[in-house]
C-alpha cells in the first residue's frame, strides 16, 4: 500500500454530532486507508454507532466533514456512495426488512446489480455465513438473534460494496461461528480489496481484524493505536489500559472503579 499516494476512500475530520443539546460525538478525525480494516472501540454510549450513522447519512453532521474518495459528502448521499458503501447495523433488525423473506431480501441487491445466477449467488451467500437454503423462506422474526445478524452480513456482501461499515457484526455469535464470519471478511478483503470500518467492543476481535484502532470515550477520540500496540499492551492512556485489563475476564469483586 503506497500511503499518501492513494487517496483515503473514507475520511472524517473534526466530526461533531449533536442531538438537540446533547453532543454525542465531538471533534473526531481519522482516515480509513484503501484496503485497511480500521477499528473503533470504546465504552458503551461513547458514540461509535453514531459515527457510522453520520458517515452513512443517518445522523446529523453538526461539525466537520466526512469525505468519500476525497470529496465532502452531500446531505443526500450520491449514488456512487450508496453503491460503494454498505452498512451492517448493530441491531440486525435495522438492516433487514421485517416483512420480507430472507430470499427476497437477498435477491434485491442481485436484481439492482443486474446479475444473473440469482439462486446460486444467494445459496453461496447464505452458506458463507454458516446457514443453508432452509432459511430462505423465513421472515426475520423467525430467526435466532445470531442468524439474523448473519443474514444482514450476507445481504451487505451481495451488494458487492467497496467499503463496509460494520457495527458489532459478530456480537451475537459464539466464537466458532464468529471465526467463520471473520475469516470470510478477511478472505474478501484479500480477494476483493474491501475496506472495513469495524466497530466492536471485543478487543480480541478488533485485534484479529484491524491494523489501526481508535479508542473512543464520551464522544471523543482518546487514543489511536496500531494493532501491535494494542496486542502488546503498549498504550498511553489510562482508559485504554483499563479496557485491556478488563478484557481478561470477570473476576468477582473487581469493578470498574478498582480496575485501572
Amino acid at each position, binding site marked *: 500500500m503506497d500511503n499518501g499516494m492513494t487517496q483515503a476512500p473514507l475520511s472524517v475530520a473534526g466530526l461533531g454530532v449533536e*442531538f438537540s443539546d*446533547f453532543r454525542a460525538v465531538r471533534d473526531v478525525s481519522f482516515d480509513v486507508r484503501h484496503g485497511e480494516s480500521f477499528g473503533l*472501540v*470504546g*465504552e*458503551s*454510549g461513547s458514540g461509535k*454507532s453514531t459515527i457510522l450513522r453520520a458517515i452513512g447519512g443517518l445522523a446529523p453532521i453538526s461539525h466537520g466533514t466526512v469525505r468519500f474518495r476525497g470529496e465532502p459528502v452531500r446531505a443526500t448521499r450520491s449514488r456512487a456512495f450508496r453503491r460503494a458503501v454498505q452498512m451492517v447495523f448493530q*441491531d440486525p*433488525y435495522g438492516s433487514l426488512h421485517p416483512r420480507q423473506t430472507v430470499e427476497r431480501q437477498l435477491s434485491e441487491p442481485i436484481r439492482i446489480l443486474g446479475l444473473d445466477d440469482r439462486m446460486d449467488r444467494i445459496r453461496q451467500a447464505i452458506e458463507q455465513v*454458516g446457514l443453508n*437454503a*432452509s432459511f430462505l*423462506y*423465513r421472515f426475520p*422474526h*423467525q430467526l*435466532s*438473534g*445470531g*442468524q439474523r445478524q448473519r443474514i444482514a452480513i450476507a445481504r451487505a456482501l451481495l451488494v458487492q460494496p467497496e467499503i463496509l461499515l460494520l*457495527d*458489532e457484526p459478530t456480537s*451475537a*455469535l*459464539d*466464537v*466458532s*461461528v*464468529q*471465526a*467463520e464470519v*471473520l*475469516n470470510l471478511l*478477511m478472505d474478501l478483503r484479500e480477494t476483493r480489496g474491501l475496506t472495513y470500518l469495524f466497530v466492536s*467492543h471485543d*478487543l*480480541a*476481535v478488533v*485485534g*484479529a*481484524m*484491524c*491494523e489501526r484502532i481508535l479508542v473512543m470515550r464520551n464522544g471523543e477520540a482518546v487514543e489511536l493505536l496500531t*494493532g501491535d500496540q*494494542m*496486542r*502488546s499492551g503498549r498504550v498511553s492512556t489510562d482508559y485504554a489500559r*483499563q*479496557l*485491556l485489563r*478488563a478484557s481478561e*475476564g*470477570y*473476576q468477582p*469483586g*473487581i*469493578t*470498574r472503579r478498582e*480496575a485501572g
Partner: protein
Amino acid sequence: MQDHLLDIRNLRVTFATPAGPNEALRGVSFAMGREKIGIVGESGSGKSLTGKSILGLTPGRASVTADRLMFDGQDMLTMPPRQLRQIRGRRIGLVMQDPKYCLNPVKTVGRQIATAAIAGRGMTMAAARAETVRVLRAVQISDPERVMRAYPHEVSGGMAQRIMLAMMVVCEPDLLIADEPTSALDVTVQLEVLALLDQLITARGMGLIFISHDLRLVSQFCDRVIVMYAGRIVESLAANQLHNAQHPYTRGLMNCLPAIDHKPGQRLPVLKREASWITE
C-alpha cells in the same frame, strides 16, 4: 420431591416451516434452585427459545409440549392465563435478546421502567421515579436524567441492553432469565453489570438463567453451565469443570477462543461440526 425453583422436563417446541417441521427444542430437561445457571450453545441451538418457553412467550404458531414445567411448586402448564401473567414480570423477569426491538418505541425509557416498578412492586409514582434513577445508575448509565427522557431509538445498543435489564431488576423477581444481557457491552461496563447481578443474587436469593454464546464469560460468572446443541442439552457441568467437558462441541469451542494477541489477518480456528452431534 425437592423444592426446586424451576423444574423442566422434556420441553419440546416445533415450528411448521415451508421447508418442513423444524424441531427447535427436542426434549430439554433441567432443574435449578436459587443459583446462577448459564446456558451456552451456538447460534440457533435453542437458547432463547428455552427462555421464552418458560414464560409461555413462544410465537402462536409454535407447538409447545412438556412433561413438566414447575415454578416454585406451581404448575405453569395448567395455570390459568391470568395467573401466568402475574408470575411473568412480577416473579420471573425476562431480559430479551433484542432490547431495542422489545422496548416500547413510543414511550420514554423512564416511563417504561417506572411502570414496571409500579406494576411489579406496587410503588407510588414518586417512589418509582426515584427507583428508576437508582437502577439506571446501578447499570452504569452515568446521566440517568437524560436517558429517562429519551426514547428507545435515542439510546445506544449497549444502553438499550442495560435499560432492559434495569426494567427487569427493578421488579425484584425470584427468577431472572437474561438472554445475552451483556453481549453489546464493552468489558469494563460488562464487569459492573455482572457485579450488580451477583449482588442481587446474594442479597435477594434470586435464581438466574444467564443465556450467552460466550463460554468463557459464563464459566467465570455462573455456578453451573448447560450446553445446548441443535435443540437439546448435550452437557451440564459445574462451571469450574469446563476443562473436563466431554461433548466435542464444548471442547471445540474452547479451542476456538481468540486471544487478544492473535496476529491480524491470520485465520481463526473454526469448529468442524459432525452430523452425529445432532443424534448422539
